[in-house]
Every structure is written in structure tokens, then in C-alpha cells.
């Protein structure tokens, strides 16, 4: 393999890892505070793509559609928290997990009823084409995804580390009850967590819709399984670990699905990765033992 090819594959893996990270970070945020495996996040991701496409068709401005989709998906996430998870918090967490899986299936069916079973095009002429330098090719949409993901993670870091809300979220993630006793409005924290994670998922949904020029009802299915694998691999609730896991998994997939005869799908690679890591390091990459 030439150096050029290696660098090109590295870019490919980073682009894939960015997509995974956008989904998994939201899951890690929710898990970190509520200890709920929020599988329905994948439905929110698909909802974001549908909303973004609808707004783009109506308004014609991609940036406005993207922001609109993030805001509306954020609101959807808050509604899910208020009307699905909050009533279930006193019950065993398995109840919330089952509800979350049910919600994901419902989302998929609702999209199918509203938009039909076939994929819809999310064609953005301004993001067509590619940049080429030193023999490396990077498509415009890939560049936007990489830059956008980096921007979102910087903003998330600033929010969590440098703001009052971030401090409260971190406190709630350490111990929800203790944070409440200390006067932190944990319900407000949880609402914001769902808003933020859903908005990030919508960003991912819109970008993936444009990347593959396809928005379709079950586009969240693959992400749901992979997201779960990633938060386990990253270390339950560890944001940094989840991001790291996303990029490592993308790199592993790139190598295994391109250069080996291993007859595994990408999901298979993720689950194999998960099993191996759980055997070697049960707390995940950056989780606490």
C-alpha cells in the first residue's frame, strides 16, 4: 500500500468515524446521567434527516434547514424525555430500554407512512464535487462533515467545561441524587441533555442524508446497534472514550472490510470489536473499573 493510499483511507476512516461519533456522543450523554440506553436516539437521527430534507425543500437554504432540523429534533428529544423516559425512571432500567426500542420501531413506521418506503433524494449541488491536493481526493460533503463534527465537539467541550450548565450536567452525571440535594435543577439538566444529544444526532442525520443522497425510514437501524456498541466500547458514559471508540471502530471497519476476507458486515465488525473489548477490558476504553 502506498503512502498516498494509506492517507486516503485514513481520511475515509475519519469521515466514517465522525458520523459514528455524532450519534454515539448523544447516547453517551444520556447514559452518563440517566443510565438509560437511549436506542431511540437513532430514530431522532432519522427524524432530523427527514425534517432537514423537508425544510430544505420548503425553504431552499441548507444552513437554515440544518439549524432548523437540529432545533426541532432537539425539541423532539425533550418530548421523548418528558413523556417516555421520565415516567419510567422509578422502574428498572430495562423498562426504559424496551420502550426505547419500541419507540425506534414506531419512528421507522411513522416515517414510512408519511414519506413512503423508498429513499428520498437529498441532493445538494453546492456540496457536489471534490477537492484534490497531493493526490488525495476529499469530497466537499466529507470536508463539511469533518469540519462540522470538529466544530460541534469543540462547542460541546466549551459547554460542558466552561459554562454553568455544563458544570451542572457533569455534577448530575457523577451522582444525580447528590446533585439534586446540592440544589442543582437536575430535571433542567436532563432536558438540556436530551436537547443537545438530539440536535447533534439531527446534524448527523442531515449530513448522512446528503452524503448518500438518501433519506429513508429505517436509516436509523444500523446506527442504533452501532451506537450501543460504541458507548460500551468507549466506557459507559465517557464522552471522550465514545469519540475515541468511534474513530477506532471506523478504522477497524475500513481495514477489515477492504483488505481482509473476513466475511463480516460492518455491524458484525462492531459487535466483534465489542465482544473482544468486553473480554479484555470490561469497563471499556476510558471507563472506570
Amino acid at each position, binding site marked *: 500500500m502506498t503512502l498516498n493510499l494509506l492517507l486516503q483511507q485514513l481520511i*475515509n476512516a475519519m469521515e466514517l468515524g465522525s458520523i459514528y461519533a455524532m450519534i454515539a456522543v448523544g447516547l453517551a450523554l444520556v447514559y452518563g446521567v440517566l443510565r438509560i440506553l437511549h436506542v431511540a436516539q437513532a430514530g431522532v437521527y432519522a427524524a432530523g434527516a427527514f425534517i432537514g430534507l423537508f425544510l430544505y425543500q420548503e425553504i431552499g437554504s441548507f444552513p437554515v434547514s440544518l439549524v432548523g432540523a437540529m432545533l426541532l429534533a432537539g425539541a423532539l428529544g425533550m418530548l421523548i424525555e418528558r413523556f417516555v423516559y421520565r415516567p419510567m425512571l422509578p422502574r428498572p432500567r430495562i423498562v426504559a430500554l424496551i420502550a426505547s426500542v419500541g419507540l425506534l420501531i414506531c419512528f421507522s413506521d411513522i416515517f*414510512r407512512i408519511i414519506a*413512503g418506503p423508498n*429513499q428520498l433524494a437529498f441532493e445538494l449541488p453546492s456540496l457536489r464535487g471534490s477537492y484534490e491536493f497531493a493526490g488525495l481526493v476529499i469530497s466537499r460533503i466529507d470536508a463539511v462533515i469533518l469540519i462540522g463534527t470538529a466544530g460541534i465537539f469543540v462547542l460541546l467541550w466549551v459547554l460542558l467545561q466552561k459554562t454553568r450548565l455544563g458544570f451542572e450536567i457533569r455534577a448530575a452525571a457523577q451522582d444525580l441524587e447528590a446533585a439534586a440535594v446540592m440544589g442543582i435543577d437536575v430535571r433542567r439538566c436532563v432536558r438540556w441533555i436530551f436537547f443537545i444529544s438530539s440536535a447533534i444526532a439531527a446534524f448527523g442525520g442531515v449530513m448522512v442524508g446528503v452524503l*448518500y443522497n438518501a433519506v429513508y425510514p429505517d436509516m436509523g437501524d444500523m446506527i442504533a446497534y452501532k451506537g450501543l456498541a460504541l458507548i460500551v466500547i468507549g466506557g459507559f458514559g465517557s464522552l471522550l472514550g465514545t469519540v475515541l471508540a468511534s474513530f477506532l471502530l471506523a478504522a477497524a471497519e475500513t481495514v477489515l472490510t477492504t483488505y481482509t476476507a473476513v*466475511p463480516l458486515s*460492518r455491524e458484525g465488525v462492531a459487535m466483534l470489536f465489542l465482544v473482544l473489548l468486553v473480554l479484555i477490558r470490561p469497563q471499556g476504553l476510558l471507563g472506570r473499573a
Partner: protein
Amino acid sequence: MASLQPASFNCDPVAAPERSGARLTRRAFGAGMLAAGLTGGHRALAADSATIKIGTFGPFTGPAAGLGLEAKKGIEFAVAQSNAAGGINGKKVELVAYDDRGNRAEAVSVVRKMIENDGVVAIVGGSLSLTSIAAAPVINEAKIPMVAAYSNAVGVVKGEDHIFRWASVADVQGWVLAHHAMRERNFKTFAILMQDEEYGRGIVNGAERALDELKGKVAYKKAFAPAEREFRAIMTEIKGLGVDAVIMSGFSPSLTSAARTGYELELFPKAQFYIGCSATEINWYNGIGSYGQGTIAALEFLAPTDHPFTRQFVADYLKATGEKVVSHQAGLAYDSTRLVLDAAKRGGASADAIWHALGETRSFMNLSGVEVKYTELREPLLPIALASWDAAGQQYKLVKFEQDAALIDPRPWYKYYN
């Protein structure tokens, strides 16, 4: 509405299956008078009612719903045309449709239901290869004829004497594509991408055997899971190998993504992209956008062609459904329904009569206006329309109809499947 008249046929009574079933039907009718409500009676009564009930099943919900609903559209259109033209020998045709959700167990359950409860006399359309394979033994045991429309796996028809097909065998598509690449384009080195299920494996089996025979070189081969959309790394690797052509099997979402990625990475059109019949699924038209110019597909029909029947069909279909595109599933299901209704017209409206008439069919004109021969294995010698994607016009343009029996015959492929 166009009539069914252009659908010509040519029967060979000598080769007809034994007519033992006709007696059984009359006996069943007599018994049915005593045992109304029982399965056999229901089936017998269906033959004498004012309507002819035919069934279809397919994925109408779930991830593969797009395929099933398209097929249903083609079947409904054929039934509506028939009824508008006066029905079959004075009887209206009634369609019974069940959703199998793309699930094997569900497919078995719904075919039992349509046979035992609804009393259908024939089944059209079939479903995905995997669900049709599961349902075929049940249908065969009940002695209900079925014409599978978009199931390309050999196992759907092989060994089930009541199952017919109106589609090509997947292997034939790969065989034809590879012959075109090597004989007519003089390509030497290839990359092969295979969707890892019955249909995808069939196309690649055909392509590999052709490349082997014609001394082509496979520089890269990779299997991928159905519904895969991420091909960046694979296309990057293929680009580095400098192959002449890429032959890919798969459903349209994967084909679309691979084509777009290949063009973005500037692999295509420098290398020729070859794909199978899923190239005319709705998701290709919705997803390919401005990419894909010059991609060559092996199709089982092409609409529009210049044939008057095809032109009339396209106009009527657009008027009735609002669809400009005649998808792979809709077109094949439309033809398979015409074939069943034509058999009912010739042979009679009972399951047994339809089965015999189907068995006697020696040729039938397809949607593209091509006369298609039928083999003794209940498989058509379906010409493969090699077509090139015109990105500006968003349609396929005919390169040629491959009618060489040595290339399109499904029979040699049976030996590879138990």
C-alpha cells in the same frame, strides 16, 4: 386502457403436463358441496364463481416495502387492464394481496391463508428470493400455480413443479455482463463487489465463471452485507488497482451509493461500472442524482422502447399511476400477471387449468415487445437488455437486447444449486 391483445403466445400441446388435476377439481367440487368451508371445497368453488381470485404476497411494510409495493402496483395495473377489457372469459379478476414483511415465516403463513381461506387459483409476483424460496414448497404442495416475478434465485423454481418464473436467473445477468465487458469492450482486469445473499451471489457466480472462461483477471473481490451504503474505502482501493471494469451485484441502495462514491473518487467513468437488474428499482432513480453516467446494467426489460405495445403501456401506466418510471418489480410483476391471466383465458379459471396452460406456454411477449421463449424448466429465456444510464435524461438507453440462447439460458445454472 390497452387490451391484453398484444400479448401473443404460442402453445405446444405435445409438451403439456399431464392433465390429471382437472378430474381432481371436479371431484373436489362435488365434495365441496358436502363440506362447504373446507379448504378443498373453497378452491373448487373459486373456479366456478363469477370472479377469478389471484393472490400476491410481498414486503408491503418493513425495509423492503419499496420493492413489494412496486410489484403490487404492476399487478394491480394488469388486473385493472384485464377487468376494463371485460375480464377473463367474462369473469372479473379479483386480487388478494398479503404483506409478508420480507420475512420467511410470514411468507409461509400468508400463502397458506390465501390458498386455504381465500381460495386463490394462482399466485403472481412472488416476493423476494428468500421469502419465495420459503413459500414455494407450500404453494407447490397445494398445487396452486405461481409465477414469481422478481425472485432471481434458482431455488425458487427448482424442484417445485407448480412454480414458474418471469425473471432471469441471477447468474445469467452476471454471465451476460462479463461477456459484454470482455468480448465487446475488450476489458481485461476486473473488480467484483458481491452483495452477500442469494441474488447477489448468483450474479457474481455468473460473472466469475464467464471471466474464468474468457481469461479475464479478477484483481479484487469483496462481499458486502445487503443494505450497505458505505463504499469509500473499497472504491479507494479499487481505484488504486487500476482495473478496467467493476462488476457489482446488489440492491439499488447499495448500487446507488457505490456509483456515487466511485464517481466522487474519480474511479468512474475511467473504469466501466456494470450492475444487475436492481438498477431499475425506484431507489436508483431517487438516489443517483447527476452521477452514474454510462453505467451499464443487465435489465430484464426496458421501458420505454419503440415497440408500440411498450409505448402504449408506458402512457397508460403513467396515466393510471402517475409514475414515469416503470420499476424492475412493477414491470416484471405486470408481465407475470399478464402471463397468469393469459393462461386462465386459454386454459380455464381453475388452479389446475391455469397450471396446465402455463406449462403449455412456449412463448410470451414481454413488456419490451420481445417474444420470450419458455423452457421446460418453467423458466423464460428472457432476453437481457443491456442498457446504459443517461444521467442527463435520468433514464436507461438500450445498448442491445442480448438474445443469444448460449448467454441467456437459465438451465445450465441449475447444476450449481441443490
